[in-house]
């Protein structure tokens, strides 16, 4: 009943026209960023966080949450229309969405994607609302011992995120970890890697680092590709929609007939969101894979099955709500978007962590209420604007990319009025560009950087508190549980899965050899 009461209070505070307007603007911007190539909700968040300095805390977070929701579903639109996912998490959407579009039913695919997105989102938000308070209460009893092992556990996720090469993923994460140690030592205030520059005393600032490696480097890489592809024929025009409007309609029975898939994917996405470090993209592929395995029409996946779109979009959107659970309960960012939200919270004087539920309960429940309102707004805006979003797919890259460069620079400059940060932005854009071209995972780099600061300070607190006796980590039940989980995940993702893939590859080679 407590939660119900708090939520009613939250709605009372959140249900204002101004707040609703911020949410709607956020969703529209999010969808647009999701549609545009190479951008996405993370880019949108990083670039728009500085604007929120001038908002009230509630409006600011509601706005950013709107962006996050819109961005995650917006990426599906170019994936469906031109088989070029706007965001990596929408890659699996293209598998079934694009064939549908080619059959003259692009709007049907887009509607399915939107409805599934909103379903996954709402599911995950409800889980967040139910679990945030109990999780925070448990987390309040955690000290450095427990927190050290929780972050250690989060690092194993890198293995799952690394993509094709585990070694390259580990190298990228180690680089991120190293970069997080720059600045004054948290224990003795000794300077580390500051090169005598006073601007580096507080370490490498998050915004230039995140915008540089994630957004600007992607833009640079696309600019390079444009130059390389000069003289190539222009991309194929959008597939025409069928003249029969009925073909683009989706009946409730068609949509809800796959309710099992919707719920399964929502659970997968929510679970992935709760574990710190994991991303939206992984959830999307896990959701798609699970649906293909268990659906009776699994063999038809990839030819324009609605169920495939539903499985992907419900899963990737379900991450958005639940990744706030570790953020709120522990102050540890669930992924890059959550890290940027933590930055936004801090700017508004709210420090994420277990105390947040105690000190700012009213604000938190107003944010929860805003999230539920945002889901409804998302449904309406996404549906009404469906023909408008299509137009954004047509905007040529030579207009989008330079605009984004400008926005990146402005976004980095505004919060600190510092040209040093702008320099850092370009430096990390260069680093990110080289890593992209060499096949190193940028996400691993950023995760290493994000978790590094917390890991160092909790580990050193643990060492100091226990007088360098680390056996405490084995006797403390919470720490021990997370240590065992760490070992299991490292084994599973680092050894078992790659071995399986290797065998599968070898088997397919043999099969091919046999058929020849």
């Amino acid at each position: 009943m407590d939660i119900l009461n708090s939520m009613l209070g939250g709605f009372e505070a959140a249900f204002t026209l101004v707040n609703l307007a911020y949410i709607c603007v956020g969703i529209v911007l999010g969808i647009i960023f999701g549609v545009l190539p190479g951008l996405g909700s993370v880019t949108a968040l990083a670039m728009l966080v500085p604007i929120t300095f001038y908002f009230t805390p509630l409006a600011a977070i509601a706005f950013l949450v709107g962006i996050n929701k819109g961005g995650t579903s917006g990426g599906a639109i170019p994936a469906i229309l031109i088989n070029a996912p706007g965001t990596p998490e929408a890659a699996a959407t293209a598998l079934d969405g694009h064939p549908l579009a080619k059959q003259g039913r692009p709007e049907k695919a887009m509607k399915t994607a939107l409805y599934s997105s909103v379903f996954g989102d709402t599911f995950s938000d409800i889980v967040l609302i139910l679990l945030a308070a109990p999780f925070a209460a448990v987390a309040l009893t955690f000290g450095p011992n427990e927190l050290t092992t929780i972050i250690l556990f989060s690092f194993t996720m890198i293995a799952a995120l690394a993509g094709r090469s585990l070694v390259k993923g580990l190298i990228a994460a180690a680089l991120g970890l190293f970069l997080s140690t720059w600045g004054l030592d948290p224990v003795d205030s000794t300077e580390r890697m500051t090169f005598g520059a006073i601007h580096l005393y507080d370490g490498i600032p998050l915004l230039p680092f995140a915008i540089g490696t994630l957004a600007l480097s992607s833009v640079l890489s696309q600019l390079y590709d444009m130059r390389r592809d000069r003289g190539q024929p222009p991309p194929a025009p959008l597939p025409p929609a069928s003249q029969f409007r009925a073909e683009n309609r989706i009946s409730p029975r068609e949509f809800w007939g796959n309710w099992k898939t919707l719920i399964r994917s929502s659970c997968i996405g929510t679970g992935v969101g709760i574990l710190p470090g994991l991303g939206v993209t992984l959830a999307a592929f896990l959701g798609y894979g699970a649906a293909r395995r268990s659906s009776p029409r699994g063999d038809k996946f990839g030819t324009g099955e609605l169920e495939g779109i539903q499985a992907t979009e419900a899963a990737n959107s379900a991450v958005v709500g639940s990744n706030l659970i570790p953020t709120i309960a522990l102050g540890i960012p669930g992924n890059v978007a959550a890290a940027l939200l933590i930055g936004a919270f801090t700017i508004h004087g709210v420090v994420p962590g277990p105390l947040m539920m105690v000190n700012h309960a009213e604000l938190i429940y107003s944010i929860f209420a805003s999230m539920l309102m945002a889901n409804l707004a998302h449904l309406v805006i996404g549906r009404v604007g469906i023909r408008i979003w299509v137009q954004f797919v047509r905007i040529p890259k030579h207009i989008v990319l330079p605009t984004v460069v400008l926005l990146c620079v402005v976004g980095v400059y505004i919060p600190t009025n510092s040209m040093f940060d702008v320099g850092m932005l370009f430096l990390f854009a260069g680093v990110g560009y080289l890593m992209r071209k060499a096949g190193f995972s940028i996400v691993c780099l950023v995760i290493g950087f994000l978790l590094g600061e917390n890991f160092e300070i909790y580990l050193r607190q643990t060492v100091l508190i226990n007088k360098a006796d680390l056996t405490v980590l084995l006797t403390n039940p919470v720490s021990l549980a997370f240590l065992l989980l760490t070992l299991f995940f490292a084994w599973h993702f680092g050894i078992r899965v790659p071995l399986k893939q290797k065998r599968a590859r070898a088997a397919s080679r043999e099969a091919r050899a046999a058929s020849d």
Partner: protein
Amino acid sequence: MLNRIALAAVAATFAAGSAAAWPDKPITLIVPYKAGGTTHTKSMVLSKALGKALGGTVVVKTRPGAGSAVGVTFLSKAEPDGHTIAYTDLGNLIWNPLTKNDVAYKVEDLRLIAGVSEYQLALVTTPDKPYKTLDELLAYSKTNPLNVADMGGMSKTFINYMAAKEDVQWTAIPTRGGGEMVPFLLGGKIDFAFSGGVHQKHGDKMIVLASFLSDGLAKDPDAPTTQDLYGIAMPGNSVLITPAGVSDEIAAKLEAAVEAAMEDPDFTQVLQNIQFPKRYIPSSEISAFAASVTKSLEGVLASMK
């Protein structure tokens, strides 16, 4: 010759005119901390009150970094025309050039206009511990090594200084501000802690052992001060500063504006909300105050070596 006199006269009137007309464009108030912190929160209302008193606009700009050293360095190099001023804490202002090698300003590069308010720096613990006062804590520490949460820099140096003087074994655990210290202290992970004033929010759940402010704490005036016990104190004052070259006339106007801001209802309300008392120090006293603080901090540093 006549020309030259005329020119000099024009120049003189122009100079006088500019001082009389100040502020003739918006004043930038530098805050050397991140937006959203207590210093920034206070500066937002202070800037409005100053603007009202001066008949102009005061715009707040944050230049965070290096425990205020980035923003203060920026101010020390600004044009001393009174259009760039800063609001910061006196402690780090003095501490940074004393302890960090690369800080590019000296306290002499700055002009201290007036003191504004005061942080509530204290040593705190929870009521379930076997010690309720500083004396009991020290007696208990003689036989039990304890963990104490610090918040970096100055607080750690002070805690180590006290432990060395009393010959007790305290391990200073670094925490990143009240948001981290409070759950550790309430959760029993550490034994006692340094607090910048956050303990006031927690009422009975925390008890004050000692005050780091020389004049004691507003809410716990009976807590023993480190000034009385060890002859060292931390400056908790926040101050308004300008570059050293600012004219006396502008400095006097700014000081009058700060004094007027003290009576501003919005500013009073914000200070009440964050429970930090006003602490106005006029320019006539602030230099001597800063000098005594510098001496005390130098003493701490010398004895730590």
